[in-house]
Structures are given as C-alpha cells and as structure tokens.
C-alpha cells in the first residue's frame, strides 16, 4: 500500500514553510535538478550519441562563456524576474492574472511612443527615461486595473478577462507597427532612435570613460563588466523592485490585506478591510510592474516594439511566481534557472546543429523534474507492507 500525506504547511503572509526543514526542501530540489540532468543526458546520448557532459559544458559555455553572454542572460533574467515579481501581489491575492503578457506589451507600446514622440525634443535623457517608465507603468496599470474593477464591482471572472486583455494588447501593437514602421515597407518598427540613442537605457559609466581608465587595473575590468554595461541598470531596477516587493508582501499592511483577501473575502470583511479597494489597488500595482517590464524590454533591451516583445514571458512568469510561492527572493533563483535553460538550449542547438526541439525537450525534462519535486516536498509518501489487510 502507498500512503500519501501532506507534510508541508505554508504560512501565507510571511511566506514561510513550516513543518519541514527548509534545507530538506532545497535538498529535494537539488536532487531533482541532478536527476533531470541524468535523464536528459541519457536521452541526449540515445538520440545523438553525443557525450552528455560535453553537451552540458556547451550549455554552460553558451550562457557564461563570455561577459557578453552572461549579460544577455542577466538581461533576460531581469525581465522575467520583473514580470514574476509583478504577478506576485495578484497571485497572492488569488487573482488569476494571466494578462501579464498584455500588460508588458502595452507598457512597451507606451515606452516606444514616448521614444518616438519625445525623442526629438530637448528633454534631458534621464528625465525622458523617467517619463517613459511612468508611461509604461501607467499603461500596464490600466491593463491590470480594468479586470480588477470589473471583478470588484460585478464579480466577473478575471482569468478570462485578463486573457482577453492580452489579445487587445496584441491587436494594439499590430495597429501601431505600420504607423511607426521604419524603414518603410519593412512592417517592423525597427530600432527606435538608432542614431541618437534617445530613450535608450545606457551604461552609467560610458565606454568612453572606461577607455580613459588604466586598462591594466583590476578596477577597470570590474567597472567595465558591471556599471559599464547597459543591462546593469535593468538588473538594478529589478533587484530593487524585488526587495521592495518582498517587504511589501510579507511585512506591510497592504501585504497583509492581500494575503487575507486572497484566502477569504468573508474574513477580510470581518477584519474591516475594504475588499474592493484591495483588489483594485493590488492589480494596479501588479499591472504597473508588468508594464515596467515592457519599459525594460523596449528601452533597456530591444529598442523596438513588436508582438514578440513580451515573448511569452508573461506566462512563464506565472510558473516562476507559483514555484516561488510568491517569495520574490526565490523568484530570482527560479527565473535565473529558467533563463539559463532557455539560453543553454539555444547554445547546444547551434553548436551541435540540433533542431531547437531537442533543446526544448531538455528544458521540458528539467522543468518536469523540478515541478515534480514540489510534490515530494509537499507530500510524504510511505510504503507499507500488507497493512490493514484482514489476515
């Protein structure tokens, strides 16, 4: 007989697991990752006859091989993390916001619009970036608050509503692309302000300044690979938001309201909370941060807008948020891993001229094991011999 019983308890507000040593939990996850690597390795060998260790080596090299690759990884990590952190208040409130994709996209549209229309003005660059960020957050917030208002006032289903909002955002993007088309006839927006770099997030310390520094000093290398990188700002912004969101959710009065409303509206009313206000406020915040993700994608990475700007990250972020149980610090680890897999998969696909599907299979196997490990963390399985049998 097999017995399955729940063993982990999760206290929602402070976001801690009780009842299980947290090291056990992380141990199980580590074992899952190792197992998944073994299984993927066997599969790689079975299909391609390649040495799995070599394949993994290529994977790691594809992500960490050069500072440039590492920064590309950090850039994507920051974007995914930003959206995941944005989803945290919504999901902690049990508001099924699957509209992050759309919120990112409208954030991106707002950013692109600011770049295009304010790029030729004489607004100082920093101020322009601030305006762009605010516009992106406002757009994302609108996309988030509309379903929230309907939910609060008429109890509509937010899952369908937020999903539909995604399609509106995609259509809106398709509407703007021909208007902002560059060069004409390409049916893409192209790099915005490619010459002036207006509205681009640029390194804190410019390449010029670095070239004037002593090329042999270790500090120069450090500066070059940190503040000298434009993605450093992306990462910094997202890490600050991550820390703030942690304390907002797990220590603040608002965070407490979110936890209670998500668990039971009756209790929330009993506790004299304004349930509607909490729903609307939290979704405004959630949408705004996802919108900021759009800003980072457009101003900090792509410098253009297309329907692929969000790139499915709005949905991957849902996995991140839930796997991390809304703990934003854990989200850092999970998004780092997911982006590593994605990047590494692309690297092995090109190195061994495998189809992209193989890399997707590996990603799938690893995710399968990690998601599966949650079961073993949450439940205890006991095997017993002929228990309870009559004779």
């Amino acid at each position, binding site marked *: 007989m097999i017995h399955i019983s729940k063993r982990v308890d999760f206290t929602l507000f402070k976001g801690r697991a009780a009842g299980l040593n947290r090291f056990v939990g992380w141990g199980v996850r580590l074992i899952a990752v190792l197992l998944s690597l073994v299984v993927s390795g066997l599969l790689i060998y079975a299909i391609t006859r390649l040495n799995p260790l070599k394949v993994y080596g290529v994977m790691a090299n594809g992500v960490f091989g050069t500072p440039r690759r590492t920064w590309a990884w950090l850039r994507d990590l920051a974007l995914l993390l930003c959206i995941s952190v944005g989803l945290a208040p919504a999901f902690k409130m049990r508001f099924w916001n699957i509209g992050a994709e759309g919120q990112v996209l409208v954030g991106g549209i707002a950013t692109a619009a600011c770049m295009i229309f304010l790029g030729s003005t004489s607004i100082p660059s920093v101020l322009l970036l601030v305006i762009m960020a605010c516009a992106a957050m406002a757009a994302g917030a609108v996309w988030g608050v509309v379903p929230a208002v309907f939910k609060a006032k008429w109890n509509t289903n937010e899952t369908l509503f937020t999903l539909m909002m995604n399609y509106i955002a995609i259509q809106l993007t398709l509407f703007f692309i021909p208007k902002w088309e560059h060069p004409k006839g390409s049916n893409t927006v192209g790099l915005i302000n490619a010459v002036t770099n207006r509205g681009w997030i640029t390194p804190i310390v410019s390449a010029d300044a670095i070239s004037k520094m002593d090329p042999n000093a270790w500090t120069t290398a450090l500066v070059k690979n940190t503040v000298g990188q434009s993605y450093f700002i992306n990462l910094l912004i997202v890490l600050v938001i991550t820390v703030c969101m942690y304390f907002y959710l797990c220590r603040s009065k608002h965070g407490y309201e979110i936890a209670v409303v998500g668990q039971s509206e009756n209790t929330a009313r*009993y506790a004299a909370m304004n349930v509607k206000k909490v729903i609307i406020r939290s979704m405004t915040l959630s949408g705004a941060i996802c919108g900021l993700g759009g800003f980072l994608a457009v101003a900090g990475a792509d410098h253009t807008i297309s329907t692929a700007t969000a790139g499915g990250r709005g949905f991957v972020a849902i996995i991140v948020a839930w796997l991390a149980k809304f703990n934003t610090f854990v989200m850092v680890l999970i998004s780092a891993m997911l982006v590593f897999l994605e990047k590494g998969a692309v690297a092995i696909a090109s190195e061994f001229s495998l189809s992209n599907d193989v890399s997707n299979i590996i990603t799938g196997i690893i995710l399968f094991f990690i998601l599966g490990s949650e079961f073993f963390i949450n439940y205890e399985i006991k095997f017993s011999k002929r228990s309870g049998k009559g004779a």
Partner: protein
Amino acid sequence: MHHRGGPRPAVHAFKEGMGLETRTVVEPPAAQEAPRVPAIRMEGITKTFGSIKANVNVSLDIYSGEILSLLGENGSGKTTLMNMLSGIYFPDAGSIYVDGKPVTIKSPKDAIDLHIGMIHQHFKLVNVLTAAENIILGLKGNFVLDLKSVRKAVSDICDRYGFEIDPDKKVYDMSVSEKQTLEIVKVLYRGADYLILDEPTAVLTPQETQKLFGVMRNMKQDGKSIVIITHKLHEVMAISDRVAVLRKGEYVGSVATKDTDPQQLTDMMVGRAVSLNIDRPEPVNIRKCLEVKNLSVVDIEGVTKLDDVSFTAYGGEILGIAGVSGSGQKELLEVVAGLQPARPGSSVIFTDMDGKTSSLIGKTPMEIKKLGVHLAFVPEDRLGMGLVGNLDIADNMLIRTYTEGSGMFVDMKKPHQLAEEIVHDLEVVTPGISTPVRKLSGGNVQKVLVGREISGKPSLLMSAYAVRGLDINTSYTIYRLMNEQKQRGAAVIYVGEDLDVLLELCDRILVLCAGKVSGIVDGRNTTKEQVGLMMTHLGLPEEVKA
C-alpha cells in the same frame, strides 16, 4: 402557525411509549452469557496523518442489535476510526473482521457491500435533487430510471422504522433534521445493517433528537447495529447499550451504559476527574450595552431572516440566543458587526463601557472600527470568517489590529507576544505560534479565535456556536472565558444550540423562531422543554408567561 401545538403531545406519547420499550431491551440479551461473537471487530487499528497519530492500536467490537456510543474528546480519533469502517480512510495497520471473517475495506462501496453505512456530520446530499433521487444516486440500476419502485422501497423503510420523509421533496427545501433523516434512509436503502452516525444530534432540537432516538431504537429492535459518535453525555446515557471510550487516539475501554454514569464516563474520556457544573455568577453592575429595536433583515434572495427583533443586552450578564439553526441567529450577530445590511427603521444602539453611545446600524465594519467601539465577535465560521487557515497563529492575531501604528509596515512584535500569551494561557496545543491555524484541531482553533477576541477588552462579546464540535475540556474553558468577560462587565451574547448549556450558563435567553423573537426567558427557572417549544412555536408557553 399551522402546526401549533402539534409535536408536543406527540413527544410525550413517544417518550412514554418508548420508555417501556427501552427498559425491556436496554440489556443486550446475551450480554451476560459466554463471549458473543462480535458482528464487527476492529483489531489493532493504527492510523497516522503525517506526524499526528489519529488512532493507535485501537481494538473495538460491535455486536449486532446494539447501540454503541463512541465517546471521546475532540481529536480523540472517533471519526477517523469510523471512517476506516466506512471506507473513507484505510488503516496503516490492524485488521477488520465482519462476522468473524477478515475483510479489506478500501472504499465506501466496499463498506456498503459489507452492509456498513455511515451518516456523516456534514451531509453529503445534492441540493437540487429530490429525496428519492439522492437515495439512488450512484447506485447501479436499469437504463430507465424506475423512481416508482424507489419511492415504494423508501416508504417501506419509513413505515418500518418510523421515519417521515417525502420522496419528492427537493433537498434545498428540507430542514436540517429532514436532511439527516434522508441520509439515514439512504444508507438503509443501500442495505446497511451497521449504521454509524457521526454526531447526529449536534444540529437537532431536543424534540427532533427524541424523534431520532425513537427511530434508532426501532432500528435496533430490527437487529441493526448502530454506532453513535457523540460527546453529549446525557444522550449517551439515554440511547446506548454500551459505551466505548477513546482518548487521544487510544482505546480506553468500554462499559455497559447501565453500569456507568456521566461522571465516570467523563473521567474515562478526559483521563482525570472533571467537574461537570457550569458556573453562573450572579450579574453585578448591570448596564445597558446593546439596544436593538425593530431589527428586520431581508437576504439577497428576498427571504426575511429577521422580523422586527427588539431586545437589550446588558453589560455584566450573558444573554443566550436559542433557536433552530437558521432562525436568524447568524444575521442578528452580523448586523451588529456591520457585516449584514438591515432594513430601514431598524436601530442598533451600542453603549461602550466608558458610556459612549453610538449607532451601529448601516455602518460598514470599517466605520464601526473607526468609531473605536470595543466589540468582539466570535463567528460561527471560524476558519472561513474569524481566522485565516493558511496564516499562522501570530499572523491571525493581526486581523483585528493590523492597521495599528503609523507607517505602512505591520508591527510584528505585538501579535507575536499576544499569540504566545494565548497559547500559554489557554493551553493551545500547537508546535508553535508559526503553525498555520488550519493545522490545529477544532478546539485549539477556537481557543485562538476567542483568545484574540477577548484580548481587545470588549464591551460586547458576541459568539456564535462557540463550543460547537469542541470537547468537554475546551468547552468548559470557553464557558469560563465567557463568565470572565461577564464579570469584567462586558455584555456577552451567546448563540448556542445545546439547550442544557444555554440554561446553565446564561442569565437570560432570547428564543428566536423563524426570525421573530419568540420570547426572552430567565435561564434560572425555565426548562429545556419550554425553550424547545418556543423554538418551534412563536410565543411563550403558558407556564412561562407568569
């Protein structure tokens, strides 16, 4: 009232009639003889849930044609043990024999194949179906539904044991007692010879309980075995032939009912001597606290829940509220707490201990909170309203106070201290204050909730079914806490269902009948039967009016 005066003579006739029969059958005919073969034998049953040992090496015999009471405090493993007989759980270790043969019960279907049927505390009925439809639900049958023969079979069962049931009545139109009857008929229809009733009287009025007992005795005479899970001792004494006692998951022993008394049973159950008297200190320093006038409530569906209710609750006394469940008790408390809107013309005036008077009608909970009134409310739905199951004990302390202090962050120290205090003072059994309350047993959940509510030093403490499902020890702790609040000068409103307790604990009892005030009686000189009558018939019975 079309049924005015109906049940009373019937109940009396019933009691007299049944009394005779009880005497003759209360001794199991073979009890004194050489060892009888038990119809069902559970041997060495162990069941654990995670680290919690629900049953440890329990052995229990059930004989045919007996009514066995399974007695134990909350969390002592009564329901778990019976769930293993009815196929809900599977034991970790141990064996079950039916008629001497070893059996494996893996599902409720296995159980019913062995003629074991259980009536759960929470009814498992489909509201939109009729009684007959619920009875055949899930059973194999012909392709064409033959409800006619089902009705016939159902009415046969009813005639045989004295049930009253309308096979074509929809479940949502049924009273709690009708639903319970339906559940019993359902398992009988499936051929159960061994019936397990999990706290069947918790939701019934005294009259309904008597009726149920009558039916149970009829079933026993027909050779059925009945196990009744309960912790009401007077019911154990009234109905059962034998009592088996569990304590903390372990089997303590069994005694013939005629050889025991409530005190001995309590001692077995608790493991030490416990006084069964509820204190009722004389009220002192009475002051007006809550004045409700012409209160009417209509719910969303347009059903009148409260109709012109007026009463006054005084500081320094416990005002009990009695009534069949769903008579408007919930709405009454929720209106005062601001959770339920009232009709225009209703008035609720609250006077705080410091003499400050405020009107609570039409205010939201937030507005009431802002008034600064000291109002505590222990709602019926503990984990669905009073507490959040997924938050730990300390975080649940914050529900009332999280807005305190300036700035946007929550003060984590005070709730921590309060949680520690409550765990210590009220002897809450928990691994620690960072355990989610969902993981605590019912009694400990209630201690946490009541502890938090009285920590605000309330002028008015409202409680709904504060001891429902709690064991004796915890119940007495709750009564003690209520009395402490009363002596502190707070007005205590105690909505209860156990009339014995209401009559022992409360100074005055307001009886609700279908949303109207049937009367307010003195708890010191009223009988259970009088209150029971007022619950079902509007108005004071003749003998109380004086």
